[in-house]
């Protein structure tokens, strides 16, 4: 092969530049995508029209699973819980990670040390985080009695009013570092000349933040929010281990409801219908969020830099 390529190396580079890489290059990725994403998805769509308990024969059920999944009050509740977790997570995580990202983007050494500490939760697996918090939140042997602070010995995981906020807190604890990292990268990309110009114009720190940092982070905010929103459609491991959807149905969000329907109640038909609903919602949200960024994605934000 090398003997073939050697004579005209220059031409090869030029050719590649003019026409782009061969379309064949996409084949491996496409094959993976087909085999591991599209085929299973089609399988799930098929299963959603059947009755199957995971063991016996698969029988045709028509729209029955869809009727069960769509009219069940537990599904409606799961949708509401998912929506709540999504909105509250955004409200909690965006400001915190934005501010932490701006803070850790500075060059001071103590900030670098703090940044490293902030990123520790990112190294832990969700299951480990959930098990640790479950132990910490135990009202009799957890952090309340341990630290001698009775106020921390609440019915954290057992009260339907409290548990949602506990879940949102633990999710934030785990994922804020990740989004902080994204914002940190975004802030470091903003040219220093913008701030210099603003300083000459007499803008204070707060004005600089709102008029330079924030607008410049537009796409970073969209990226990070997309990850948060789609992530909350996929939160499973953490909540499964922490609350298993309880008490009652208080934290049974859609992906967990799908899992429990499929693998606890062994109703694969209804679980598949829920899976399809999840995919549709996920794709719809991703599309909306991408649209928010505007169509002129190639337009530069760095004019005048």
């Amino acid at each position, binding site marked *: 092969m090398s003997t073939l390529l050697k004579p005209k190396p220059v031409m090869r580079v030029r050719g590649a530049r003019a026409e782009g890489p061969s379309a064949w290059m996409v084949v491996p990725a496409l094959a993976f995508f087909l085999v591991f994403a599209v085929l299973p998805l089609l399988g799930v769509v098929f299963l959603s029209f059947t009755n199957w308990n995971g063991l016996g024969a698969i029988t045709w059920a028509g729209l029955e699973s869809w009727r069960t999944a769509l009219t069940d009050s537990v599904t409606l509740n799961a949708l509401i819980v998912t929506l709540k977790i999504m909105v509250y997570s955004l409200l909690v995580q965006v400001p915190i990670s934005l501010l932490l990202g701006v803070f850790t983007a500075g060059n001071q050494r103590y900030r670098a040390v703090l940044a490293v500490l902030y990123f520790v939760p990112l190294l832990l697996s969700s299951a480990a985080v959930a098990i640790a918090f479950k132990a910490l939140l135990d009202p009799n042997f957890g952090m309340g009695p341990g630290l001698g602070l009775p106020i921390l010995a609440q019915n954290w995981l*057992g009260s339907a009013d409290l548990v949602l906020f506990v879940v949102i807190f633990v999710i934030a604890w785990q994922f804020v570092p990740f989004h902080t990292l994204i914002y940190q990268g975004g802030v470091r990309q903003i040219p220093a000349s913008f701030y210099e110009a603003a300083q000459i114009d007499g803008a204070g720190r707060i004005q600089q933040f709102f008029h330079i940092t924030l607008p410049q982070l537009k796409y970073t905010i969209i990226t990070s929010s997309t990850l948060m929103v789609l992530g909350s459609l996929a939160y499973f491991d953490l909540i499964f281990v922490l609350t298993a959807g309880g*008490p009652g149905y208080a934290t049974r969000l859609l992906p967990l409801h799908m899992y429990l329907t499929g693998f606890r109640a062994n109703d694969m038909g209804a679980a598949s219908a829920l899976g399809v609903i999840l995919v549709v919602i996920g794709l719809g949200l991703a599309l909306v969020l991408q649209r928010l960024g505007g169509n002129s994605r190639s337009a530069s934000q760095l004019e005048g830099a």
Partner: protein
Amino acid sequence: MKMRTTTSLISAASAITLALGLAACGSSGPADPAADSDSPTMWALTGSSENIFRSSVEDWNKANADDKINQEFFANDAYKTKVRTAVGAGEGPTFIYGWGGGVLKSYVDAGHVGDLDQFLADNPEVKERYIPSVLENGVIDGKTYALPNNNMQPVVLYYNKQVFEDMGVEPPETWDDLMALVPEFNDAGIAPFALAGQSKWPNLMWLSYLVDRIGGPEVFQAILDGEEDAWSDPAVIEALAKIQELVDAGGFINGFSSIAADAGADSALLYTDKAAMMLHGGWVYQNLKNDAPEFVESGEVGFVPFPEVEGGAGDPANVVGNPANMWSVSSTASEQQKESALNYLKDGLFSEEYTQAMIDSGAVPAVNGIEDQLAASEDKDFVEFVYGLAQDAPSFQLSWDQALSPAQGDAMLANLDQIFIGEITPEEFAENMNATLGK
């Protein structure tokens, strides 16, 4: 142009190689490794009986080179999901560990486990080994599909003797006694009952016992048979109302729905004198021996049957819990594997050492003729209590979440959770559950 063709050819070739590689993975993955070898596979659970399962198979393999068993261990919750998926895909182990009830029935219906009738007819001594009411749990439609492999686990009322002595009170014999004890303990700053409500299934023990005491075992049998509106039976409604009365009276420790059973945080409340009583399965005694040996050795752990409900139709000698765990033999295993598995069930299971090791661990094996060994045990009080309880019980009801179909069991635990935290009324519970009948 020629170069471009070459590169496209190369990438196409690599894509094809990749695809073939994937296909190869695909075909080698599902192939059952055990099907190639002739030795049977066994999936067992970690926890209270783990050491007994392990040493039994080790000894068996030493003595029976032709019938060697490959044993693997799994944690309870993970096992329940894994084994079902594996059995459904025809890749389950030769020995399937189970609880009887609805799950066993679904295996039988799908033809995944073989019946043991011929084996039991050929080897009557195997059948005679077991306590009949326990063996009954492996019977589906008149045929035996599973044999008990460990101890009887009735649910009993544990109490802290020291706490009771300090307060000068006696353990409850009736429901009224129990309700009368609640304010006394609360006034003394001790929680009357520990409960791991976060795990949901411990809640069920209260419902099963109360329904049995109030209405007798027929009430649950009607639910199991899927009779219309079976959950609306007055006994169920009354039992749920009694549970909510107990919750409202402060019967359970504060924040009980935040307590998880996995790490034994509920039993810890009992042996640290924070709670006076706990309704729990027979296996807790084995765990207490590990977690709080001084509590068990000093004789502080007390145990009584679940109290009687005045005017109830159920026999107060009835028991609920897990009669025992069981081995089923997979019908998709090879003939050689099945034969070795049956040999083990005949000669390895409940050998003398097996039974003795189980008794030494503080458990009561589900077999006959062990009175002498129980009397000689260092846990004499407890093992004899459990043995008597199980032997004299007119009915030994399997835990409802195992007896019912998985879909009903799941909905029941979630709805019962809402009863305990006061989110729904007994009538709403009955209505929600009636909708699941027959699922």
